Every structure is written in structure tokens, then in C-alpha cells.
């Protein structure tokens, strides 16, 4: 089936084929008149040669018409499509364009001199190629079915479609499938090609990553039952991260290839004209990989520590990388990372302070580079007035200078001059069973002799759900009971088995050696690494020894914070569920040691320990693009109508909360396709307005712009017959569709026609003969 690269030239040029006929007719009108005497001989000659002359003239006319047609055909760049369907006479071809719209497709490949001209990206190049394809299909004979789908939409589950679609409960399954496509199935004609092009022009990179395999599986049914031929155009930037699972991609493509569908892998990220990118595989790009508040309890007017991690996807180190910081969209002084090694990441800390309670946002942003979407990252934090800490003690004289709780609560809440935001609540052990422990940042047990089973169960439940429990031992502690009820041969919350209280003997050989040493742990990191006079001043007289024979299992996660001079445990932690248990094997009060007395390092370590434990409870979940946002509501207290405000324009989407599998009332927002701040608003039954804020960020792995070498593509898709094209120089009807150019054959035929025309012209005596009577 012939097709043409420039079909318009054909339509304009073909009428020129009538030129020889028109010239012939004009010449008939322009006859010179000669009054001739020897008509007899002329008539005789005409009678003799009439048929031959007529045939020759017609043949000559035909040759000239053919010559002009050949010339016009040459300009129109004809091609012969040799796909089987065309040969067998089928005139229907289904074209399915599968567009990789991951955010790496927004990589700037070429910038123009004029600022008014938008830069070329892999996505804009894809759109141009699709428009070219549409134009070609519009001028191709036969029925051309066209479908266009973006991978980000095709890989969504049905309930992730737009809320309007979801609310239309009567929409059939086909309509639901169709909604995943930008163009589901449309017969492309010259009349509707413009509307299709309008849809193509609207395409933008999503903020999602690429999942090619499920997208291919979703479009595969489009080719089922087709009696015509089919072409799959997979437009992708061939990022290595997307093609790591190339075996799965090949498996998904194989049924199509076996069915005879032409598969085109169209590379959109390289072109000869790209001026500001490297043609090699490595393309440097900095990505904000993580932003996290590392403090325990975010309290108003308290400095909150943050960590931000930047990854350097390149083969050379990045120096002096500046990070702009915004708190609640207001600029604040940025920070700078001195060096990020190639292929590695670097982390830097900064602090922020919020004056008010409630949800606040912090955003960090890298300088502009070729991929903008991964240059910023947002986090939210729920700032509170204060955080309660539960302190369990059995003593009644709580303000005594010998009481553990006095020193602990003083450290946790030193007073108005140094606000920590912590409010200790001192309770007896029975409170463990009467209070809701989940409302406390951490639980501290001070020299509690024993706990009943209910209290232990409450503590362990609290720890499993992310709570942190600290045990200070002392003279009242019954180590055997502790071993039996809380350690339980390693199954319990208590980290180590105790062997009873012992004195820390003096070191006769090295009397100036410090009694305690800080281990490699974040809680005591500020004290470790060098000789610390405050820590050296701590004297430990007595402590609770750990059983000598105890060897912690390798997978127990046991980790020392502090050790004694004799290498015995002083402080040790053990993960328990989502939470943690910490054993401090001496007293909090200066009974067995003097640490809490006038030693600032005591306050530092206690506050760091509290932050460390509270962080487990207040760990902010990172929500990535495409992941659902779930709002836990209280049944009977909250209304079920929830309004979600979606970035970037705070579009309101109404959702109704429903019971999940766990029996909790949950409002879910699945449409998290844009990065930014998502808000949820609802009311309680009593009419109180509630608001919840969360940050949705991109998946930083897509920022790795390293490409799959094209030479590895055949190996990656082994067993699948496909064609590799580049979007910038792809001609849709070219040899890629099994077509071949007809230019050379037509040129050859044209030369033959012109030669024949000359010979025939000569033979019909258009050239002077020298014959005289």
C-alpha cells in the first residue's frame, strides 16, 4: 500500500499532469494557416500515416503526462507499506501510542537562544512525533484507528481515576477503561486530526515514575480481535531505572510481537540536535532525596532539627550545592553542602522554629538544573504546645533531692528559661493500666520494683505500636522479677537479663579513667568522639550488672548507648515492635552515681534520649506520588464527609470516609498525582472544624537520568521483534512500518520515460530532416 511523506504536494502536484494535454489543446488553437495547393499529396500522406501519427502522439502525450506525474510523485516521497495486512487487502490499522510520561521526560534536552521559545524536552519531542504520526495517519488510505495512553494513567487502578469518573456509578467497564486513555480509539481522518492534535499538545510529564510492564498489559486488549494490522509505539526516554525489569517488559511485549504487531521503541531523550546535553549515558542531576524532621516532639517556639539528603546522579562530584529553604512558603536562610561524591548522597541538618501550633510545611529546593521536578521536596510537621511524658515511680516524696523523678523531670522540663515543650507526668505503676499510653511521647520507669502482668502488657503494647520505654534501675529494683516478667529470655521489652546490683570497683592502675564512655549512638553522639570533661566528671559507684553469660542474639538489635569503665552495660536499647525499650542500669538520682547532680551532660543525654524515643512515635510517613492519603477518623465523633484540597490550585475533591478492613473509619484520597501540600478538611459531629495536612513528594529514584545503552536494548528485549527509532528523525511511514521508499524506483522509471519521450519525439519528426527533391 503506497503512502506519501508529503501527501499535500501530491494533491497540489497531480493536476500539473494535465499540463501536456492543455498545451496540446492550446497548440491546436494556435495553428498557423497555410493555403496549400498540393493538398492531394498531403491528404495522401495523412491517409497513410494517420493511425501511426495518432498513436505516436497519444503515446507521446501519455509519456509526458507520466513524466510530470513521476516528478510529482518524487516530491511527495512515496513509500510502499509492505505489512501483511496491507498486502492481503486489509485496510485497517490500529496504532497504539504508549507514552512514558514519568517526570524524567521533563528533562531539558535543548534550550533556545530566545527566552520566548520553550526548551525542548523529551516530552515535547514525543508530542511532536505523535503529531507527525497523526498527520501521516490522516493522509494514509484505509481506516487508521488511533489510541493514545500515558503510562502514569494506564498503571492506575480503576478507583484512582478522577473523582467524577468514580462517582458515576453507572459508567460501564469499557468507559472506565477508556478514561485511562487520552485518546481511547479514534479513527483518524483529515477532519478530526486537528482535535486529536489539540489533545496531544496538552500532554505534560507526570510526577510519577514509570511502570512500563503493567501499562503494556493494559493496552494489550486493544489489539485483541483485530483483523487488520497493528502498530505499538512505545515512546520512552529509556532510563535505566525504568528498564531494570526489562525481562518483565519483554514478557509483556511478547504476546503482541507473536501476534504480528509492529513494536516500535521510540527513544525520546537523544537527538543529534541536542546542544546542552551529553550524548553519553550519564547525565548529571541532583535530586533532593529526603527531608525529615529528626527531632522528637515538634513544639511551638522550640528549634526543630531537620535533615535533608541530596543525591548526586553523576560521574563527578558536586561542590558547594546550595539549598533554599522555605517555612510555610516563606524564605529563610538556606544551607550549603560542601561536596556530594559522584553517585552518592550527602546529608545536612538545619533547624526551624514555628511560633504557632498546627501543621506547618518546610520545603527545600536545589538550584535549577535540567530536571526541575526533583529539585524540591516538601515535608509537613504537626507542631504542638507541649508533649506529655509519663514518669512512673513508686516513691511518694517526689520533690526530694534523692528522688529519681526529680532529676528526670528537671532534665525533661528545665523551666521557662529553656523550653523543651515536654510536660512530665508522674504517676504510680498502676497508671500504666488506667492511662492511654499512646497519648504520651515516652514512658519512663524509675526504680520500679515490679510490675503486674497488666502493666507489662500495656507497656509492651505501647512499645509495639511505636512507643519508647526507659527503665532506670535502682535499689528497689527486683532484678529477678525483672528478668522473669520483662526480659523473659529475650522475648520481653527489657533489653538484657540482670544479675543483680554490683559496685563499680576503682581502677587502681588508671585512677583517672572516666567511669562511663559514650558509644556510637545518635543519642550520645554529641558526647562521643573526643574527651568530654562533663562525661569524665560522672562517677558511677553502683550499677545493675548483666548476666555474665549473656550473649545477645545477632538479630536482637541490641545497641549500647553508654558503657562503664569495665565494659559493662550502662545504657542499652532494644527494638521492640515499632518501638523500643531502653535500660539504664543505674539510678536517675545521684544515689548510685553523681551524673544528675550539676552535670549538664545529664540534661543533654536525657533530652536526646527522649527525642530519640519520641521520633519513633512521631515518625512522619513519606507519601510518594500515586500513593493514597488515608485520614483516620473517629467513628461517632467525626463526620464522614471529607474535602481534600489538591495542589497546585487547591482543587476541592469530595470524599466519603468508609470503614476499612481493620474496622477503622478512613477517608482515602487516591488522586495524588501532583507533588505538593494536600489538605483534608472535615467537621466533627459537634461542628468543630478539623484540618489535616500532608506533603506528597516525587519518587527520587526517577531523578537518576542514566540511560539504558541502546546497544543493550536487543538483549533486554530478547525474543521480541521490535524496531528502535529516535523520535526526532522518525518518519512514521518509513521503513519502520515495513515500508520502503519508492523514490529510487520512480526516479529510474522517470528517466526511462524521459528517454522514451525524447526518442519518440525524434521519431515523429520533431527534429529536422535534410531531404530534398
Amino acid at each position, binding site marked *: 500500500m503506497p503512502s506519501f511523506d508529503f501527501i499535500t504536494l501530491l494533491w497540489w502536484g497531480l493536476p500539473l499532469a494535465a499540463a501536456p494535454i492543455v498545451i496540446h489543446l492550446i497548440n*491546436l488553437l494556435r495553428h498557423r494557416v497555410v493555403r496549400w*495547393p498540393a493538398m492531394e499529396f*498531403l491528404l495522401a500522406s495523412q491517409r*497513410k500515416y494517420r493511425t501511426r501519427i495518432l498513436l505516436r502522439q497519444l503515446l507521446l502525450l501519455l509519456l509526458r503526462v507520466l513524466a510530470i506525474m513521476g516528478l510529482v510523485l518524487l516530491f511527495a516521497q512515496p513509500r510502499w507499506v509492505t505489512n501483511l495486512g496491507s498486502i492481503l487487502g486489509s485496510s485497517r490499522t490500529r496504532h497504539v501510542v504508549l507514552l512514558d510520561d514519568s517526570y524524567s521526560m521533563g528533562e531539558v534536552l535543548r534550550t533556545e537562544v530566545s527566552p520566548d521559545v520553550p526548551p525542548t524536552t523529551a516530552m515535547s519531542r514525543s508530542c511532536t512525533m505523535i503529531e507527525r504520526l497523526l498527520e501521516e495517519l490522516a493522509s494514509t488510505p484505509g481506516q487508521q484507528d488511533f489510541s493514545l495512553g500515558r503510562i502514569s494513567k494506564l498503571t492506575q487502578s480503576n478507583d484512582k481515576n478522577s473523582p467524577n469518573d468514580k462517582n458515576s456509578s453507572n459508567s460501564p467497564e469499557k468507559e472506565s477503561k477508556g478514561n485511562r486513555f487520552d485518546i481511547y480509539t479514534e479513527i483518524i481522518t483529515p477532519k478530526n486530526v486537528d482535535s486529536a492534535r489539540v489533545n496531544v499538545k496538552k500532554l505534560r510529564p507526570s510526577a510519577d515514575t514509570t511502570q512500563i510492564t503493567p501499562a503494556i498489559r493494559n493496552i494489550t486488549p486493544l489489539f485483541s480481535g483485530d483483523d487488520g494490522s497493528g502498530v505499538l509505539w512505545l515512546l520512552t526516554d529509556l532510563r535505566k531505572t525504568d528498564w531494570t525489569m526489562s525481562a518483565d517488559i519483554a514478557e509483556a511485549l511478547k504476546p503482541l510481537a507473536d501476534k504480528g504487531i509492529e513494536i516500535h521503541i521510540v527513544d525520546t531523550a537523544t537527538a543529534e540536535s541536542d546542544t546542552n546535553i551529553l550524548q553519553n549515558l550519564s547525565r548529571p542531576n541532583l535530586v533532593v532525596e529526603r527531608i525529615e524532621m529528626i527531632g522528637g516532639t515538634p513544639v511551638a517556639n522550640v528549634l526543630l532539627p531537620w535533615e535533608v539528603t541530596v543525591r548526586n546522579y553523576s560521574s563527578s562530584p558536586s561542590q558547594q550545592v546550595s539549598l533554599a529553604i522555605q517555612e510555610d512558603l516563606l524564605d529563610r536562610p538556606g544551607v550549603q553542602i560542601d561536596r556530594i561524591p559522584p553517585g552518592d548522597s550527602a546529608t545536612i541538618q538545619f533547624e526551624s522554629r514555628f511560633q504557632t501550633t498546627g501543621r506547618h510545611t518546610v520545603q527545600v529546593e536545589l538550584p535549577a538544573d535540567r530536571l526541575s521536578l526533583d529539585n524540591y521536596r516538601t515535608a509537613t510537621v504537626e507542631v504542638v504546645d507541649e508533649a506529655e511524658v509519663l514518669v512512673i515511680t513508686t516513691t511518694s516524696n517526689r520533690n526530694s533531692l534523692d528522688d529519681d523523678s526529680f532529676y528526670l523531670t528537671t532534665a525533661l522540663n528545665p523551666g521557662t528559661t529553656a523550653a523543651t515543650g515536654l510536660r512530665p507526668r508522674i504517676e504510680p505503676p498502676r497508671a500504666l493500666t488506667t492511662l492511654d499510653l499512646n497519648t504520651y511521647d515516652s514512658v519512663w520507669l524509675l526504680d520500679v520494683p515490679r510490675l503486674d502482668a497488666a502493666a507489662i502488657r500495656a507497656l509492651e503494647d505501647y512499645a509495639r505500636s511505636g512507643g519508647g520505654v526507659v527503665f532506670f534501675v535502682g535499689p528497689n529494683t527486683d532484678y529477678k522479677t525483672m528478668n522473669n516478667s520483662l526480659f523473659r529470655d529475650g522475648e520481653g521489652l527489657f533489653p538484657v537479663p540482670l544479675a543483680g546490683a554490683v559496685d563499680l570497683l576503682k581502677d587502681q592502675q588508671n585512677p583517672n579513667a572516666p567511669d562511663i564512655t559514650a558509644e556510637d549512638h545518635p543519642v550520645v553522639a554529641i558526647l562521643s568522639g573526643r574527651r568530654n570533661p562533663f562525661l569524665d566528671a560522672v562517677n558511677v559507684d553502683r550499677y545493675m550488672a548483666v548476666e555474665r553469660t549473656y550473649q545477645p542474639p545477632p538479630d536482637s538489635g541490641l545497641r549500647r548507648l553508654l558503657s562503664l569503665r569495665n565494659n559493662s552495660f550502662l545504657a542499652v536499647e532494644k527494638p521492640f515492635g515499632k518501638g523500643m525499650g531502653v535500660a539504664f542500669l543505674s539510678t536517675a538520682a545521684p544515689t548510685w552515681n553523681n551524673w544528675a547532680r550539676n552535670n549538664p551532660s545529664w540534661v543533654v543525654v536525657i533530652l536526646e534520649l527522649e527525642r530519640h524515643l519520641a521520633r519513633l512515635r512521631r515518625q512522619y510517613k513519606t507519601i510518594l506520588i500515586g500513593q493514597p492519603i488515608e485520614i483516620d477518623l473517629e467513628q461517632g465523633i467525626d463526620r464522614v464527609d471529607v474535602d481534600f484540597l489538591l495542589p497546585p490550585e487547591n482543587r476541592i475533591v469530595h470524599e466519603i470516609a468508609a470503614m476499612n478492613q481493620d474496622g477503622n473509619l478512613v477517608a482515602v484520597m487516591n488522586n495524588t498525582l501532583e507533588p505538593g501540600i494536600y489538605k483534608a478538611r472535615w467537621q466533627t459531629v459537634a461542628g468543630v472544624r478539623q484540618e489535616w495536612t500532608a506533603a506528597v513528594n516525587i519518587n527520587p529514584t526517577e531523578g537518576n537520568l542514566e540511560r539504558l545503552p541502546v546497544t543493550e536494548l536487543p538483549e533486554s528485549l530478547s525474543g521480541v521483534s521490535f524496531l528502535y527509532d529516535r523520535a526526532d528523525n522518525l518518519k512514521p511511514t518509513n521503513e519502520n512500518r515495513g515500508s520502503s521508499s519508492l523514490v529510487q524506483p520512480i526516479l529510474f522509471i522517470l528517466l526511462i520515460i524521459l528517454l522514451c519521450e525524447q526518442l519518440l519525439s525524434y521519431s515523429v519528426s520533431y527534429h529536422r530532416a535534410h531531404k530534398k527533391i
Partner: protein
Amino acid sequence: MTPASKQYLPPEVLARIGRLDLRARAVVEGVLTGMHKSPYKGNSVEFLQHREYTRGDDLRRVDWKVWGRQDRFYVKEYENETNLRLFLLVDGSASMDYIPPRFDQTLGLTKYDYAATLATSLAWLGLSQGDAVGASIFDERVRTSVPARTNRSHLSSLIAGLEKPRQKHHSDFHSVLRNLAENLPRRGLVIIFSDLFGERDALYKGLQVLRQRGHDVAICHVLDDDELDFPFDGPTRFEGLELGGEISCNPRALRDGYLQAMEQFLGEVRHRSAASQCDYQLVRTSQAVDKTLVNFLSRRSKTRGRS
């Protein structure tokens, strides 16, 4: 000076001379200058026989030598007692009016003009030698006829006849030549100036009739170069001058066929003329008239010498 070296009058120059008598004079003067003497000298007659004198015979014809030897009166008899009777037959049909397109249609020399000039020149020469010269213009029949006379003032009558307006119909040689043969009182030399386009069998029959009546017949076949060479180029519509009809064609496509037909025609005419013992000469209108006249006269003298 030999005839070959003289400068002839080209037809283009001759065409600028409007009057036929002047054209003929220009031609004849050139011919006479070149030849020095006319082939038709004086009134010489040829001796035939003696016969006995009878009353009434002219005493000047008595052969006194015979009387001296035999004492008897015998009178000499001669074969012909008069000069040559020359009759010029000029074709005045429409086909004789052809002027090549390259010439101005008003100033060009038509085949008829050429033939009339040639005929007048011959008449001039004949009359100057004392021959009786007559002329006729014909197409389908004789349109104008001037009887043969010997006085030199007869030339003006001949010229007036040749310049008369013509009907320009098609030629009918048979009826014309038969009519001529019947009406000519004595045998003589009949010279036909024509392109011979017409019924060919009729032409041959007419020539036969003339020959049967004892006339000496000469044919000046006057044709234009275009008719012989067919040099036309480009889209052309040919409209028949005499026969009617038209052909729109590329002339080059028909040239070969035309030239073949023309060649066949000329060969046939030449052959049939020879068969009828008619003197035939093809004359191109591009050829100088005086040269044609010289050629004709020398050809005639050779032919008479042979016979």
C-alpha cells in the same frame, strides 16, 4: 561571356517589377545579351521537290538551272512556306496562386506570375524572330485566348490576355487540351505552363490529343520550393487552394509521406511526358526566370537537333 557566368535576375527582384511586359523585357534582354544570337534566325525554309510549271506559278520560283539543262520549266517547292507557330498555354487555376508564407502575400511572385513572365518572355523572343505567337489561359476551360500573330505589336495583346483577371477554378486538362487541339488551325509548338495539379489521366489524354494533331508539346512544370521540399514546421492548418479541404497537423509528421507522394507524382509526369514525346521541364519558382528561359531554349535546341 558564357551563359553560366552571367548574373540572372532572382525571382525576388523580378517580383518587384509590377508590369508583366517590363518583367518579360527584363528577362529577354538578359537572355539576348547572354546568347548574342537567337536560335530562330530569319525565314529560312527547306526544299521539298520540283514540279512542272503551271500557269499562275510565281516566276521567281522557276528553277532556271533545270531549264538550262533540260529546257523545261520546273518550279521549286518548299516544305513550309511560313515561320514557327508558337502557342503558349498558361494554367490559371487557383493552385497557381500559391505564395510561400515567408513572403509578403502582396509582393510575392506566384506560380502564375512566374509562368506568365516566362510565357511573355518566350512570346517576346518568338515575335522578335517573326514567329506567330498565341496564348491561352485556362483552368477548367479556356478563359482567355489570344490567336497567333506574327507582327510585333501582337505582344501587347498577349500581355493583356495574360494579365486579365482569372476565375481560379480547378484545372481540367483534358477538355482544355482537346479544345485547343481542335481549334488550332495549324500545327505548332504548344508550351504548357502549369503545376499540373488536377486529374492526371485527363492531362495525359490531353497531351495525347495534342500530339495526335501533330503539335510539338513542351511542358514547363512550375512548382514552388515549398511544394517540393515541404519545409513547414510547427502546428499548421493547411487549407486547400484548389481542391478544398483542410488538415491540421504537425507538418513534420506528414513530410515523409508528402515527399514520397510528390516524388511519385513527378516521376509519373516525367515518365508519361516522355512516353507522349512531350518535352518536360521542372521549374522551381525560386530559380531565376531568365536562367529558366535559357535552360528551356537550350534544351529545345538540343531536342530539335536530335530530331
